[in-house]
């Protein structure tokens, strides 16, 4: 009884707190948490255009997914996209950030901007020009390759080239953010540490590998996490360039969800796929967080 009373007092004292979080939290409930729970619910139904005509099927759609070859391909592709794009992005961004770091502040700002601009333009706009660049007969890439004596390649319509074409486009507009983060991280390394290393006779290459890159670890982990989650949700470049083809060899999980939900109106199965995607990203995040905590960064 006393406990309840003191709890009620706490509640009354906290009224302004509840009022302040209310707008944000209500929006969060209405547009995020509840839709999320509804999506999980929908994954147990077959639903199409008429929502009222849904039918409860239990876990049957998840069983169907395990047997669906397109879903398997999409899942594997998504993992492959991540395995190719994320390491290449991080490595290249690190190199570029190290090249930018010794420049004056104006030049730094210029190059940061130059690498970030494709990203602000957005994946759709960028894909439009890549449709032309990758064109087999009058595209820039095949022209350049032709000069080197390489036969024309059907970049967007043949496997495995469409996969790598998508990778290249995604790389061009996602590299800006890691470069900025790495560069900010490098700028944050105190000059006294590097001065001390110079006095001890460490070459600038040694300083880079033994001091600067190890000190970037926290930023590196952050970039790894955000890039992985971003590439896992890749779809617009696929929509614009390949349509997932040929024969689904360049499709991704989110592109398949988009197709099933918003083109095929199969909301149930699309939700089930979404739940699988969510679980994968959740597991990945938990691993990341553990790594994060254990390293005490």
């Amino acid at each position, binding site marked *: 009884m006393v406990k309840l009373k003191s709890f009620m007092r706490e*509640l009354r004292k*906290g*009224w302004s*707190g509840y009022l*302040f*979080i209310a*707008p*944000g939290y209500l929006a*969060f409930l*209405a*547009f*995020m948490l509840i*839709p*999320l729970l*509804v*999506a999980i619910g*929908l994954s147990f139904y077959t639903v199409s255009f008429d*929502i009222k005509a849904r039918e409860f099927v239990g876990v049957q759609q998840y069983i169907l997914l395990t047997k669906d070859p397109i879903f398997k391909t999409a899942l594997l592709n998504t993992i492959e996209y991540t395995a190719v794009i994320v390491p290449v992005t991080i490595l290249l961004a690190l190199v*570029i950030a190290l*090249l930018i770091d010794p420049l004056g502040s104006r030049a730094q700002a210029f190059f940061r901007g*130059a*690498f970030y*601009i*494709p990203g602000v*333009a*957005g*994946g*759709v706009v*960028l894909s*439009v*020009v*890549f*449709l*032309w*660049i990758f064109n087999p007969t*009058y595209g*820039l890439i095949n022209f350049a390759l032709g000069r080197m004596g390489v036969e024309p390649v059907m970049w967007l319509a043949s496997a495995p080239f469409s996969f790598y074409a998508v990778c290249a486009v995604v790389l*061009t507009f996602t590299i800006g*953010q890691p470069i*900025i*983060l790495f560069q*900010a991280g490098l700028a*944050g390394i105190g000059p006294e540490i590097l001065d001390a290393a110079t006095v001890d006779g460490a070459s600038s290459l040694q300083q880079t590998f033994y001091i600067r890159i190890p000190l970037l670890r*926290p*930023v590196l982990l*952050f970039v790894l*996490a955000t890039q992985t*989650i971003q590439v*896992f*949700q890749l779809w*617009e470049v696929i929509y614009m360039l390949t349509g997932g083809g040929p024969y689904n060899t360049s499709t991704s999980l989110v592109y398949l*969800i*988009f197709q099933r939900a918003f083109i095929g109106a199969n*909301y149930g199965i*699309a939700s089930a796929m*979404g739940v699988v*995607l*969510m679980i994968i*990203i*959740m597991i990945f995040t938990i691993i990341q967080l553990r790594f994060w905590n254990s390293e005490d960064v």
Partner: protein
Amino acid sequence: MTETILAQEKTRRSLEKAASLLSYLLLVMFAVTFLLPLYWMVSGSFKLQSVTMAIPPEFFPSNPTLENWTRLFTGPWPVWRWVLNSVIVSMLTVILVLLVSSMTGYGFAKKKFPGSNLLFFILLLTMFLPNQVMLIPLFLLVRSLHLTATTLGTYFAMAMPMIPSPFGIFLVKQFCASLPDELFDAARIDGASEWRIYTDIVLPLIKPAMAALAIFTFNQSWNYFMWHMVLAADKFQYTVPVGVSIISRTPAFGKMITDIGLTMAGGSFGAFFMIAFFIAFQQYFIRGITFGAVKG
């Protein structure tokens, strides 16, 4: 003896000079590679169809033409309407995200109330979840409410999934946590209401975070392609990315893109606004990106 040391020093210096020159060249090469697609798009928009298909390609348009741009602006596409739509949706999103994030972030940082830790934890959990999952129920909701029947409804529906921004709330909470409690206590003793404290003390102090969040949200909202495409009922409701994608998918014959010039003009038109926006607010972009990830 001293001569050899001097000579060594000299070679070391010239080596360093060569290395820095080399790294500069490498950097320029990377930058050119990454900007080449954008250059190709813009220069392509000034080429005639026959030139766009010429082999070898013309690196600088020798006979620049405005034909594609004229067709873009006088054709069947209401391109300026798309810009208006994009601006309205992004502005609406920014205003709502700023309002909601600042209040909620401040509440979580400076107010003590039962359950605040749990509520914040639930919020954080969803920060990294793929939003495509939530779009399906939201789409069904929008459809059953007939929100897209009116233009205003469509604008709101397009902004809807971005309003609860766990990132924004997190950012403001971090920012507010560094403000001293004494500040608020003093204001309270002076008789300021809780709302006054928020508008007159909190908001001015968190301005840097707000500016970065605004710029970041504007860009994200502008490029929220999937949701805009799903909602836009007709060509008057398209946003810029949707319009650009539709133009690129309008073939004259077969599946090949044939109207390269027009497509490049559309792409350049679409890219222009965000790039101009970025150049104008570059420092806020950088700040928004580095907030939270890099200390200091």
